[in-house]
């Protein structure tokens, strides 16, 4: 971000991060089925990471080149997960 531009409200972002941390930890104590708890836990993690990247790392203000640098490795990760997935299915089906 070039100097002189307005900054995001860093304090508000920090308070949101703390609230999301509390929510994620609280969700891990939810009774009953794990699926909902796991969904909440990872949704809060994703929200925290997005808040940090967009505001603290100033991604909100960056041009397309920086986005490309972030998105291309994330795309590779999806490919990696897809490539590893058959192995997991194989092991869970094997006797």
């Amino acid at each position, binding site marked *: 971000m070039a100097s002189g531009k307005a900054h995001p409200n*860093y304090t508000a972002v*920090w308070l949101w991060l703390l609230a999301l*941390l509390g929510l994620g930890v609280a969700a891990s104590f939810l009774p009953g089925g794990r699926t909902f708890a*796991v969904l909440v836990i990872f949704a809060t993690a994703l929200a925290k990471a997005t808040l940090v990247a967009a505001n603290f*790392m100033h991604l909100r203000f960056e041009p*397309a*080149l920086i986005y490309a*640098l972030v998105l291309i490795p994330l795309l*590779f990760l999806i490919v990696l997960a897809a490539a*590893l997935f058959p192995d997991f299915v194989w092991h869970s089906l094997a006797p």
Partner: protein
Amino acid sequence: MIARLEAEGIPGGITAGKVGVWWFLASEIMVFGGLITTYIVFRLGGPGWAEASQHLSTTLAAINTLVLLTSSFTVVQAFVAAERGDARALRMHLGLTILGGFIFLGIKAVEYTTEIRAGFTPGAGIFWSFYYMMTGLHALHVLGGVVVNGVVLATEGAKVKNPHRVELAGLYWHFVDVVWIFLFPLLYLV
């Protein structure tokens, strides 16, 4: 000379130093992403992982998450101070960030000691191998970030000459924070 090259604009309106740091972070995404993806696939495919993770201290890890999130906030405040040319505020916020890094590593050391004393060494099972590999690599990154922040503090602390360096060091520190944001639920909460 180097500082001038870092701060120099390239077409698109960003500085060369920033492209360099993001490029480095892109490779880091693959380093941690590869580990995390493998961990998820292994964990989905094998029983006993959830029981093993019960032995970890969620309380200590939650405190550590709080420490890292807060240190991300202080390093960004250091950047705001650097932009203003306020060396005193820069020293305070960078100092707090470095302190946060040391607190994180201290708590991590307590965790490791407790776990190893209870017999959960890196060879105690595949969950523990992944746990020590992922958190150990992350802890080394925290240590690296502390050194980088220390260098920035030493060079910019008296008089702010290159405010963009504070932002670049901050980018790396936030990345280390983001990695922990995912390690915490993966290893401790789920």
